[in-house]
């Protein structure tokens, strides 16, 4: 069992757990993920590592309530424990001195970008962060990201905070400004990553995305997380989760995310029924 040492409700439906997992904390690197299972009847879901502390033996995850499992997870409190916390899985993010890196985060992706931006900053890069959410109420970790950034731009869809609009607009302006951008890291919803990749493509700036397809084991055993990159099939769990965004088959990625829509809806409704009664 893995104990929840700290729980924070960051914004509506987005929560943070700091887990006691010393062995995972020892090996965790930015960009890796864990597979989590709540209890005996639970499914295995991948969640990206948002932070880790080897000395304290903790690993932090941030998740959004999107279905039965994450809703069930959100009900847990500090001191509760979950059955399984497997990791660190996947290939760590590539951390080198590239020069200037634009880190683009969408929604819950802010938590995934944070440790990568921090590591890139530490490696000597200039970090320009673009953080986008739907509205001010859903904004979190702008302070955390700011601490690793030389420049910071916040966008909201409704204009309730920062600049009104979506992240691709300041990204495009940045690329057009003539400032040399050596690399872009874009992490968030599939559609946001897709459009970031489309935005940077004409400028020829390498754009790394972090894919989070449906997984079961997370160790290369099942092939559920197949993605097509540069025409080749890859397993996101072991070959990724980071890939070159210009080479990802985004339509396939989006289609495969929808495999269990019906079942997910059914499970969520069942859960809501049993939870309200």
């Amino acid at each position, binding site marked *: 069992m893995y104990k929840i040492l700290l729980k924070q409700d960051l914004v509506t439906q987005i929560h943070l757990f700091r887990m006691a997992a010393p*062995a*995972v904390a020892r*090996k965790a690197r930015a960009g890796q993920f864990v597979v989590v*299972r709540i209890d005996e*009847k*639970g*499914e*295995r879901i991948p969640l990206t590592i948002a932070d880790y502390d080897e000395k304290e033996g903790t690993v932090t995850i941030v998740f959004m309530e999107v279905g*039965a*499992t994450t809703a069930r997870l959100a009900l847990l409190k500090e001191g509760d424990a979950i*059955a*399984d*916390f*497997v*990791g*660190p*899985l996947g290939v760590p993010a590539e951390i080198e001195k590239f020069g200037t890196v634009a880190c683009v985060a969408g929604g819950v992706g802010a938590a995934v970008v944070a440790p990568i931006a921090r590591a890139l900053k530490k490696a000597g890069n200039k970090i320009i962060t673009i953080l986008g959410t739907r509205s001010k109420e859903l904004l979190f970790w702008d302070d955390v990201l700011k601490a690793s950034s030389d420049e910071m731009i916040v966008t909201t869809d409704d204009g309730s905070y920062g600049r009104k609009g979506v992240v691709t607009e300041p990204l495009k302006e940045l690329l057009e400004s003539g400032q040399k951008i050596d690399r872009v890291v874009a992490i968030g919803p599939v559609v946001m990553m897709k459009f970031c990749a489309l935005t940077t493509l004409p400028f020829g700036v390498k754009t790394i995305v972090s894919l989070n397809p449906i997984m*079961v*084991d997370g*160790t*290369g*055993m*099942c*092939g*559920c997380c*197949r993605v*097509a990159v540069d*025409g080749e*099939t890859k397993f996101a769990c*072991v070959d990724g989760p980071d890939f070159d965004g210009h080479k990802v088959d985004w*339509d*396939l990625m989006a*289609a*495969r995310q*929808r*495999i*269990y829509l019906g*079942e*997910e809806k*059914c*499970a969520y409704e*069942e859960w809501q029924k049993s939870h309200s009664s």
Partner: protein
Amino acid sequence: MAKLNLNRVAMPRQAPKKRAKNFNEVALGYSLEQAQEEASRCIQCPKRNCVEGCPVGVDIPDFIKAIREGDMPEAVKVLKSKNALPGICGRVCPQESQCEATCTLAKKEAPIAIGRLERFVADWERGNTGAAKLPKSPKPTGKSTGKKIAVVGSGPAGLTAAADLAKLGHSVTIFEALHVAGGVLMYGIPEFRLPKEIVQSEVDYVASLGVKIELDSVVGKLATLDEILADGYNAVFLGTGAGLPMFLGYPSENLNGIYSANEFLTRVNLMKAYLFPDYDTPVKVGKQVAVIGGGNVAMDSARCALRLGADKVYIVYRRSDVELPARREEVENAMEEGIEFKFLTNPKQFLGDEQNWVVGMECHRMELGEPDESGRRRPIVKEGSEFVIDVDEVIVALGTRPNPLIASTTEGLETTRWGTVVADEATGKTVKDRVWAGGDIVTGSATVISAMGAGKVAAADINKFLGG
């Protein structure tokens, strides 16, 4: 000499129509009377060819004699002294090509039903002592040697090696990547062929010998092999199996509704998707399901799909009936249940709709040519023979290869171009110092019992290395 009794006692089974709709065990096992009747057919021949045919060398005539005499505790003792997992082996070993093939009565086409008797003994023990009543602390089988051994993977090879080494007094820790121990016995083989309760009770038996089992521990990620060796372990046994699914490599293979058998079976068996939504993991239930391949995994996948509620399930196999690599018994079970076999058929491509869902499979008809390196006749495409099968789910069961995770994170481990780890067949020793390997990671996908045999061989050599 008494007259030979050539009437093998049949084992009761659930009727095909009934069992095709549930996940309960198909074969129901002998009663004591049936077991004793079958045991009494054994002529206790001095040659003991059956023992030769057993990869772990169980003293078969001795446990059969004990059954005949009604001394069940003795039968258990004899069986378990060589085989830590008899309830599993009694169910899934291909006895027809091992101990029963070498049985003296096999010449009369009526070999003793050794597998059924083995199963009977294991089930008798579970029913009488129960895993829960087994001692929790290490059995006082010998003095502790103070040597530490890490076993990576808790499938048949790892469990067997761990049990043998623990019995010899070594301190053994198993590292398992998944959340339960048992490997393919848990995620791969379905409940109706091998109930998970039986696997769990045999895993518990291995733990009762003093073996520590660390779950959720992905070696290569959580710790590398070299880190384990540096962490005070005197030796490591690698029994991580062949967990990497093979696909056809067609671009159309990533359509929604196309599964690897590994994923499909893991969802159904390990995650209990057949109990969704009571259990959280879903699995797609197709109406028209095609399973590609002809091995045991293909049969298991097809029979699971049927039980989940498919209207029509096809086995699509590029050779013919006689070349099917699956056990005959499982092929017959599948046929009885209504699985339709499409022999000499091979997929050319998958057809999808606008939503990326698979809707059809274009196939070639095949014919058989000269035997290839596997000794089976080579399938050849009949040009212009394309036809389409309407399907809404496809399960690819073309075999598996070892997961590269450990080999790719370990210095000095020799691997073949198929990703298998090179190890000495007689000892299980790899070229890397203090590292042994056995089972599917060495041979590529094979049987439970051959993996157990390899675990046994390696355990003996590790013991020798440690000065035992």
